[in-house]
């Protein structure tokens, strides 16, 4: 690893100050869990001049219910997501997604923010958060701004973050709290494997008409960034819930995906996976919707 200067931020405002101080005339990198950054820097021909450590920034480690919805601090680790009672209650899909990331050791270090900022198309947090229409809060010297996650990703390993900005929190908007959602990942093995394809499906149910409401599908590893599947969503909107509709939505989603062939899988195989995983994710989300209804959740969209 190339040498660099190291500064540890005490809290998020300290982090922003440190970034502003150094970003003007040096190459700065933030380190959170370090699971992506260090693995990269060990092979990098040119490293950063300055590394700002935010791993001790406690004000970005909270998971709270607010007026806006469910706020997850960017420094929440994958292990914390798996253990959070709030997330377990509202979004078991996020727990499942976190569970598929790396292994215990990497989940203890790796953060949700780091996963999103690294912005590899196969990231496992992406599809569920896209399906849940998450919003991210970005903190910079000039204050905070919010953008939909959809607009946060620019391309492979590229986000809209400026060098002096940090990702502060991820918000799942209030209207989607408890929306039945399911995440599925297909990797070559269970542990320590990146997704060949990962999919999240989410919808509300109109129990009177038995139709899909606000169906949302997130797809990973099939485009330069994590994407939604607009054609499949449009196909499902207002359609009567049935096994055939879910299978057809899977086939339609293939048209939304633009996978490439690489050493992990061929584009053709990835397209096949999109169809199968989308169908299965929809089926499991449907099961979750029914269970929740029986358990007395108000399985309706909160007006």
């Amino acid at each position, binding site marked *: 690893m*190339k040498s660099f200067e190291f500064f540890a931020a005490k809290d998020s405002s300290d982090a922003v100050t440190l970034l502003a101080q150094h970003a003007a005339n040096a190459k700065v990198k933030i380190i959170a869990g370090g699971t992506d950054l260090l693995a990269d820097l060990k092979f990098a*021909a040119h490293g950063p001049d300055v590394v700002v450590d935010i791993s001790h920034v406690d004000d970005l480690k909270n998971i709270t219910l607010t007026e806006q919805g469910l706020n997850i601090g960017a420094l929440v680790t994958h292990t914390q997501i798996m253990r959070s009672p709030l997330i377990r209650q509202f979004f078991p899909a996020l727990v499942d997604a976190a569970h598929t990331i790396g292994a215990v050791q990497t989940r203890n270090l790796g953060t949700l923010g780091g996963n999103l900022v690294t912005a590899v198309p196969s990231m496992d947090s992406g599809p569920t958060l896209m399906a849940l229409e998450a919003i991210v809060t970005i903190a910079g010297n000039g204050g905070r701004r919010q953008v939909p996650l959809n607009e946060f990703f620019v391309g492979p390993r590229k986000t809209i973050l400026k060098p002096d900005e940090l990702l502060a929190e991820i918000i799942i908007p209030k209207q989607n709290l408890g929306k039945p959602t399911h995440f599925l990942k297909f990797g070559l093995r269970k542990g320590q494997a990146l997704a060949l394809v990962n999919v999240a499906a989410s919808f509300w149910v109109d129990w009177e008409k038995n139709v899909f409401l606000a169906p949302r599908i997130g797809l990973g590893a099939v485009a330069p960034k994590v994407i939604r599947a607009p054609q499949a969503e449009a196909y499902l909107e207002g359609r009567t819930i049935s096994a055939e509709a879910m299978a057809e939505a899977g086939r339609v989603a293939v048209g939304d995906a633009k996978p490439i062939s690489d050493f992990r899988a061929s584009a053709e195989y990835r397209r096949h996976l999109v169809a199968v995983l989308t169908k299965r994710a929809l089926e499991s989300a449907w099961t979750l919707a029914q269970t929740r209804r029986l358990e007395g959740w108000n399985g309706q969209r909160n007006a």
Partner: protein
Amino acid sequence: MAEKPKVIEKPDVLERPDILKPQAPAPLVAFPIEVVVPEGRQQTPAVGQRASRADGRLHGLGQTKYIDDMYFPNMLFAKIKRAGIASARIKNIDTKEAEAMPGVVAVITGRDIPCNSFGPSLKDQPVLADTRVFHAGDGVAAVAAVSEQIATEALEKIKVDYEVLTPVLDPLESLKLETPGVHAPSANIYGHKVIKKGDVEKAFAESDHVFEGTFRTQMVEHVPLEPYACIAQWDANGRVTIYSTLGRITLGRADVARTLGIPMSRIRIVATVVGGNFGGKNEIRAEPAMALLSKKTGRPVKCVFTRSEEFTSSTTRHPLIMDYKTGVTKQGKILGRKIRLVLDGGAYCSWSETTLGKACILSAGPYNIENLYAEAFVVYTNKTMTGAMRGFGAPQVCFAYESHMDDIAKALGIDPLEIRLLNAFDEGSLSPTSQKLHSVVVKESLLRAAKRFGWNGIGDGVGNGNGA
């Protein structure tokens, strides 16, 4: 007469050893380490038992000393510059800037190696490439510095001027006589074996069906959890001590003697506990270069491969391209089989000859085949060298002949178990090289296995019952 081995009877009821009880009467003492050294020629009831190992205690304590856990006073750390090009001519290597770096103590190139070639059979590997690069993982220079970090940074300061050449990457291309030699003027085919029995062409003519299939396997790295490592220490009397993860130290010593041009009596190789070998640590790698760096600096020098170097610059398992042609009767009895194996040998021979031989001998499978023609070639390509790895070619051909058997069974509509029972070796069968086989239990094993996993015939087409 040799003493008969003692056999300890397997007790009917296993007694619970103290250690499995919560309040063990014997204290759980970590030290001193008391190891039960097994008596010679003692046969224990091994199958289904959990045999503890003499070194198990130290392993669990984290006290086993592998090479990277050793340190000698004043030790230097070495790194090797890799070519990163599959085939090239080296025009010039400029090490001046690296040598001038603070913390760098010595730099050597291939020209500093007294005799720059070694290998367990053919002596075709350079310690460090001097005039030619034969694969991307070739080392072109080695740096010894006061820290690993400085040594790594110094590699970037070494400027190598290459004339890039067109590499030979496809083994089937390499097999053609008109393809330029990887090690010209030597031919690309550097090993060849034929096993002939009976008359295959006649057998094909008499067969009801003749099936053909081509099978390929990929290159595989051993991935020992401990990457290759060594420490060399040249002493004032002109002797060198090398601590190495090497599995064959006497063979390694001969190669070190050859490359350094000193008698074997001046070389002491200490084999340490190895963190996994699997065939990938059966020949020297950086030992001569480290010995020379130590000689040049008068200090001990350590070199540990990165995980990437373990993939690019150590041996791997041969990829094989295997053509099979088999003539059978309607019932599935094999009358004749013709096989061609092409082994991708990569840039250097290493243990290719052993692999070639074993792959060829085993390529017909454990089946009685009266008429056989098996031919195997190993060729050079500009890729990571292939060498020994568990089975020396046996796993590759097994994949081919068993897949081929399944294909034949499927085409004939026969149970894949049935076709194997029809053809498998019996007690006293002759191997393809006419060795009389004893203790043959192929059929018994197949039947038992089939029973164990509930084999239900041809298979139900949904993934159950595929393969034997």
